[in-house]
């Protein structure tokens, strides 16, 4: 189960001129990137026809590493850029890579409307609970009481459950996985890539250098091992005085609904009107 398909070599999909990459030692984003590339490989998606659109932040930098048509756009807006790109070029396979700050804070409006609209896009949100690139400020998914450079006395804001948000906004496919389970991540991303509409996938990733260090969360391997037990209490379910209780945030496919795909519906409506 953990053996990769024999002909998958992640190096085939990376841009050598961009190596070494800039991710910190222990960062979970590399595992998420590997899972994405593995999924693309197994689905035999033509990289000439693959467009990867990313925003700003650590997650946003990943697009540059992928040997495809890649677009590193502005902070919070990759879904809006991708909407234009996918509508203009329905022949392309468009994947969005974003982070928790990019997708849920500055770009939150675009997320809920992308979910509602249901244009075929695969949105991969890497949630490390922190603004890592700018030095570790609080994000919309930072757990309560956590220390960040802008919550020096502990975070007092409740955090978002991004998948619940996506489901509520009408996303056709919603799933969550942790970087600890790379093959499962790959499988989940494959499902998302094959979904005929908007797919939202949250990957719980670790920021070891900034978030982990600031909160004494141990080494990267310790953080990864704890992903399914101690981390990420939901403020909506846990009391603030018990923030680190095991919560078992559900992973896997959380929602899958067949809804009309936006681009196809738009083209069908135009064709019907032209035929009149």
């Amino acid at each position, binding site marked *: 189960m953990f053996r990769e398909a024999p002909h998958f070599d992640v190096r085939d999909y990376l841009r050598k001129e961009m190596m070494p990459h800039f991710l910190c030692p222990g960062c979970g984003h590399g595992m998420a990137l590997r899972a994405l590339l593995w999924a693309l490989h197994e689905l035999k998606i033509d990289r000439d026809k693959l467009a990867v*659109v990313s925003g700003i932040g650590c997650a946003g930098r990943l697009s540059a590493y992928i040997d495809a048509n890649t677009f590193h756009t502005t902070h919070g*807006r990759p879904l809006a850029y991708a909407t*234009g790109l996918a*509508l*203009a070029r329905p022949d392309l396979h468009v994947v969005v890579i974003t982070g928790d700050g990019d997708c849920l804070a500055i770009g939150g*409006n675009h997320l809920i409307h992308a979910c509602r609209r249901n244009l075929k896009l695969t949105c991969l949100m890497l949630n490390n609970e922190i603004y890592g690139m700018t030095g570790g400020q609080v994000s919309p998914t930072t757990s309560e009481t956590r220390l960040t450079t802008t919550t020096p006395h502990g975070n007092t804001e409740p955090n978002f459950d991004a998948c619940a948000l996506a489901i509520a906004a009408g996303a056709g496919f919603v799933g969550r996985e942790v970087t600890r389970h790379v093959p499962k991540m790959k499988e989940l991303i494959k499902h998302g890539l094959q979904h005929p509409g908007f797919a939202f996938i949250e990957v719980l990733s670790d920021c070891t250098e900034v978030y982990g260090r600031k909160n004494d969360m141990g080494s990267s391997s310790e953080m990864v091992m704890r992903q399914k037990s101690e981390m990420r209490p939901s403020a909506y379910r846990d009391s603030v005085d018990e923030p680190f209780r095991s919560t078992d945030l559900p992973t896997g496919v959380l929602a899958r609904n067949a809804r009309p795909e936006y681009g196809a519906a738009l083209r069908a409506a135009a064709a019907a009107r032209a035929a009149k």
Partner: protein
Amino acid sequence: MNAIDRSHAKPAAKLLSGNAACAQGALDAGCTFFAGYPITPSSEIAERLSVLLPKAGGVFIQMEDEIAAMAAVVGASMGGVKALTATSGPGFSLKQENIGYAAGAEIPCVVVNVMRGGPSTGMPTRPSQADIYQTRYGSHGDYPIIVLAPASAREIYDETIRAFDLAEICRTPVILLYDQVIAQSSETVALGGRAPVHATRKWASGPRESYKPYAADADGVPPMPRPGDGYRTHTTGLTHSESGFPSQDPETVTRNLGRLYAKLDHFRDLIDSYEAVRCEDAEVVIVAIGISARAARRAVDACRAEGHKVGLFRPITLWPFPEIALREATQHAKAILVPELNIGQLRLEIERQLRDRRVEGLHLISGEPITPAQIAAAATKLATEV
């Protein structure tokens, strides 16, 4: 036969608002993508294109906000299509970051800004000309941009087509700037007199291995890679090298930004456009755009009828400012009058261009257009003083 008689022989003229002329111009220029967000007084462009574009095989989408509309337009253009968005004051402010992205990453696109009274929500249904500097300097950082300022429905049609041509040729965002009066007034327009130039984008071709997406041709414009053609390049708003990948190498950064300015300089003959009316012997030259220029045109005739040597210089391309033509048009002028619907914006540029001349402004910020009589009075006063 004079112009009036000729136009009489053209019953095909139709009543067209400025905004409708813009929509038609976009369609005729080959635009196949529009993303927008409702805002007065530009919404008619979106409304009309929501009918026209799907019929022509294009895409119309109303996005969730102004920022998303701008981003979607840049995204569509990155996919290889001609794309347009239209907005006004507050919406134009919101679009600025992604306009800067388009300038930096060299993504062609056209943005319409219909000027209404500001600041903030201001006067949504009243004309203004107070976005002159925002169109030029609205986004952060150094970047060049093209701004066209048509003054009639007919000219909006022509300039919309030219905006797409210039965007494609120079790989740059182009702003189409006009005021609420020009936007929402309807005028009889006979379309079809001008054969539209259909500039097509310079696409990357040749070997993929050695291809560098930001290696420019001699004209300063790099051929653009089209997704799907196999070039698999990277596009970023970070400063980048010819390879397209991020770079903060001082020499690379300096050279690349310098090239953005140089490429517009290269195409100045194509970019520059203006109208000079009776400037040859003018002692007072009025410099104006949009509805103020239309009023000034009447004022010139009124002043001439009284024996005053008054002319009108109307920049149709606002940025880069046609400074050589301005100097030529004002060579005999002892004074310059700048009537505009703001507290003094175009006047600043004219003062900067003509430092040795007397430059007076006529500024109205009441939400009403300046009348021909007001301009004629100011021009007459100047003509008798100098």
